[in-house]
């Protein structure tokens, strides 16, 4: 299984902090779609634009590494990975 953790506005949206989903070898985009089903609520619109591109400020980490410096939404995941999802945020 792969653990997908929700933070910030996403957590409020799906009303849970994490789901475990199967998805060995899938892209992160496909995995997130599986996570929507598993969580029982949509959240991808908080992370992606209408063309399924990453919104400015969306952070997707796989084992702590930002997918933007891997293969973006095409980055593959493996069983045992941990995925952290953050919608755009700021502070100081």
């Amino acid at each position, binding site marked *: 299984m792969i653990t997908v953790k929700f*933070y910030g506005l996403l957590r409020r949206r799906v009303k849970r902090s994490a789901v475990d989903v199967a998805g060995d070898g899938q892209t992160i985009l496909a995995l997130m779609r599986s996570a929507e089903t598993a969580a029982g609520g949509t959240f991808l619109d908080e992370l992606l634009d209408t063309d399924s591109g990453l919104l400015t*400020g969306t*952070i997707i980490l796989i084992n702590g590494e930002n997918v933007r410096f891997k293969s973006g939404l095409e980055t593959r995941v493996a069983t045992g990975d941990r995925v952290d999802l953050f919608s755009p945020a*700021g502070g*100081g």
Partner: protein
Amino acid sequence: MMTGWMGKIVKIDLGSGKQETIAVSDTMRRRYLGGRGLGVKLYSDLCSSTTDPMAADNALIFMTGPLTGTVMTSGRYQVISRSPLTGTICDSSSGGHFGAALKGAGIDGLIVQGRAAKPVYLSVHDGGVEIRDASAFWGLNTQQTQKGIQAELPSKTSVACIGPAGENRILFAAIMNDKDRAAGRGGMGAIMGGKNLKAIAAGGSRPVEIADPSGYKDLAALIDRAVDKNPVTGKSLQVLGTSVLVNIINAHGMFPTENFRRGVFNDAEGTSGEKIAETLLLRQSACFKCPIGCGRTTRTRDKNGEGPEYETVWAFGAHLGISDLAAITEANYACNELGLDTITMGSTLGCAMELCETGAWKENLRWGEAGKLLGWVTDTAYRRGIGAELALGSKRLAVKHGRPELAMQVKGLEIPAYDPRGAQGMALSYATSNRGGCHMRAYMIAPEILGHPVFLDRFSTAGKAELVALFQDVSAVVDSAVLCRFLQFALGISTFTEMLRTVTGLDFSDEELMKIGRRIYTLERQFNNRAGFDRSDDTLPPRFLNEEFQTGSSRHRRVHLEEMLDDYYAVRGWDRSGVPLPQTLAELGL
């Protein structure tokens, strides 16, 4: 007719009671805008880099800018002086309404010199400044003081004051206004205490004249839409406040834990913005005309108040190994009431805990002791018991106990809640900050972690020097305009340019604003150079240069400072020792 600026800066001597209006030329306004920029210029002209910050003749300058009292978030003000904590030039910024109130009272700024024979406060109304007796308020906390002074003056008076920490001249005493907004960093509150100045109260209804009212109306509507549409300013900051960063920074393995010895705090979740919203949050709070409302009005079982925001959650939380959110929040309330900078207070406690753990300090401060937090904070404000040593701040405390390397500071100012090993640009920003270890001179976390305006490789040093200098210059402009820096998540430099054009009627360009920012940054640097700061001070504690985390997603990383520093000086037009070159000064008209 002058628009934007009110055209009046008052200088007052608390010793003699003499006051005068300072002449500021149109040229000087255009070159330094207001706020931080004009304040630093006026300070440099009035005082020298050897002026003792606590001496009577030191100047403490309260400044607004041409945009103060106009568009959203423009209630801010800047306090400028030489910091008693660091010895550098310092400007400390605060939100709320006080800046707009100063302009409503008819002035752009107030320069305070001298020392009053007994406690006083200043009342600024209708363009006049009156010295009033504050004996009845001396000893009161910041909340009691504000209420007491407001009761003596016309309604809608805004008050900026010190608490017991400022009266006791604690080197990191804050100035508090509009209940819980803080000019926190650098000890500006200690200077007020040294002058026997308890507070400044301001109010009035003088309008800020706008050069192009029609254009201003359109622009204000455009800004409204941009801020509302932006997911950070229009949603995240509103719902979760700044502490939404706790989980983000922790997931990047750079959430400083137990005096920066680790980058992952196992209990981060319990102190996060999400947890605050679930457990303590009563409502959002907002500054002057601000639709964002990042402030948190909260309650614990026994008390209610303002905060904590991100830096404070960290300073009293992960940094001390404390995960008790109520204890963190109540320590924040205490700092608000006593008038203390939460970052330096928390960081100094973390330094103290490591000093005790190593045996360098024979005291008994231990990680995770949430129950003692409130006592330590209070004792610091009154210099009681170990509080007398904590009141030194981390640098002086660590030096005193023979372990200077355990103070996590730059130029004497404590580094906030982003471990620089996780973001090379942020590291350079800390090292080159004109007021010491500060995240607000160039907030490189935006591009390196949060993806604003784009994501940069946080571990790369390439191109970081140019970007740090650029961010420093833009920040100097926004601090001089004066607006809230959170607008930068939604607005680019050209919108700030347009705001200044519309309000002042002057034909500013983006290029001119960037040059103004560079001029201000270089002027501050010149002051620091004269005060004895050089390349050797543009550094970081050795922990960040030599030690690596073994776990977390910033593991096995160190800061590569020297290579960035050479690039940075070259970008800035400074020599290799960090002194601006003659041609740089000539180009900037310095």
